[in-house]
């Protein structure tokens, strides 16, 4: 059992959730409430990671994070280390490929807040910020929680893009999914079996918890 790989996966998932939460609140709310030019295109772009093969996505990310691209070069100038094949690069890739898993449910969550309830908040004198904290977030919570759990679980399970962008550097970019692959390549089926079972267990636990909690929130609101 490669504990460092499991720990790395959990750290990666936690960072992704932390970074994506504000993004999904912002973009989910924007897409739910506002009409703007290019909205359909934006929604399509957010959904892209769902349909593109991980190799294609990984390839673009590799180019984007590399020193040949402005982002990769800027990071190198700032930190002194390349973004590709690093944990930070992995976080960046993870945030991008989890966008559909985070934003879609968040958007549905905000869409579930009735328009007249949001208007009532304004007519009660709530500033947009207070309305977000006291009315919209509590009501959109089931969607936001689904978003975060899906992101967490999906990060644990992602394989192709991690391999493309991160490689398999122990302690830096070797996640549990990669470690399982390595075990199988080395004909260590027993090791692979243990790690696979652990991953199944953790994923089931996280998703089970969400269903439980969202059922409770559902009861509270109905």
């Amino acid at each position, binding site marked *: 059992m490669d504990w460092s790989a499991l720990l790395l996966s959990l750290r990666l998932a936690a960072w992704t959730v932390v970074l994506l939460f504000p993004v999904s609140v912002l973009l989910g709310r924007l897409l739910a409430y506002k009409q703007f030019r290019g909205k359909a295109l934006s929604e399509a772009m957010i959904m892209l990671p769902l349909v593109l093969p991980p190799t294609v996505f990984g390839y673009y990310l590799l180019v984007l994070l590399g020193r040949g691209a402005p982002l990769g070069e800027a990071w190198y100038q700032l930190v002194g280390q390349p973004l590709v094949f690093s944990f930070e690069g992995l976080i960046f890739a993870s945030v991008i490929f989890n966008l559909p898993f985070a934003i879609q449910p968040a958007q549905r969550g905000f869409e579930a807040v*009735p328009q*007249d*309830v949001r*208007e*009532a*908040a*304004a*007519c*009660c*004198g*709530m*500033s*947009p910020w207070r*309305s977000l904290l*006291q*009315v919209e977030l*509590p*009501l959109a919570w089931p969607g936001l929680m689904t978003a975060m759990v899906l992101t967490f679980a999906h990060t644990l399970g992602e394989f192709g893009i991690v391999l493309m962008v991160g490689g398999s550097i122990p302690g830096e970019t070797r996640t549990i999914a990669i470690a399982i692959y390595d075990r199988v390549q080395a004909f260590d089926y027993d090791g692979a079996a243990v790690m696979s079972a652990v991953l199944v267990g953790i994923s089931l636990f996280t998703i089970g918890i969400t269903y439980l909690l969202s059922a409770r929130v559902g009861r*509270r*609101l*109905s």
Partner: protein
Amino acid sequence: MSLSFSAKATTPIPLDLSFEAKAGEVLALVGHSGSGKTTILRTIAGLWAPQSAEVQCSGATWLRTASGVDVPAHRRRVGVVFQNYALFPHMTAKQNVMSAMPATVRDKSNAALDWLARVNLPDMAERKPAELSGGQQQRVALARALARAPDVLLLDEPFSAVDRVTRERLHAELIALRSDLSMPVILVTHDMAEAQALANQMVVIDQGRVIRQGPTAKVMSDPAALRAMGLRDLASLLTARVIAHDDDGLTQLETATGPIWLPRVKADVGTTLRVRVLAHEIILSRARPEGLSAQNILPAVVDRIVSGEGPGVIVHLAIGGDEVLARITRRAARDLDLQVGQPCHVILKSMSVARDHVRG
């Protein structure tokens, strides 16, 4: 406190109108659905801005499109009761009311309980909206709107989602509350009986334009306004005092010119009521008729005869100090040879007066 409103727009609904509402007055915006009344309310609240509009409240400019002034909704002191109440479902009744209070209110919890008591909902403070009936939710919504200490109170068809009995009770409660309110109240409704019962002023709107505006009684007897509202709703109010509750389920009332009997009225003997009489339910007779099933025959004097464009005329009749309207055909008026100043008899079936058309 007063509110002045003017707007011009072509979308989403054509608007071209202006009106004013004074402090302590209930102004009813009346019109069919799609006439623009809700859009007007949303413009006042700051939830919508037409192409060209101006809203002034208590001397402050809330909206003036010409000079780019548009105070955001949360900075306008408006209390709004939405059609479906729009209560915050995750908050208790008390929290809903507290959420609208200005920051200057010190003991919000007790103030909220006071408001809930004033709308006759003292024991429901800890309930969530889902645990309240429609009428109770409406009361919470009203308490929340008033807790904002608004400069104008906006009611968007607030009684349309409750049953008839609850609506009557809510009407009575609002009438009782009305005298305490210092701000203008704007009531959007398509229910003539409701407007007649609650409002002092009335603005009749059709396709975004004002057809008629003025005191309710005056507008209600205006043929131009009536065409927009539908003649079936033409009605007038007759003052009557409860004399006795008879054993056969009828209540005897005394009007200025004689007794009438109505289906059992829920009011104590001696109470003075206003009975809403639909104009098309009235029969006129020159001589006092005999051998008639209708119980209520009241002497009256013809005040005015107004003909419309159709086959009907509206006869204004004086019964004591009340003006009663009858809608009869032009031919009937001619055959009766009705003249202004002439005495005649108003005949009214007891059963033609709906229970919720009798009010204190």
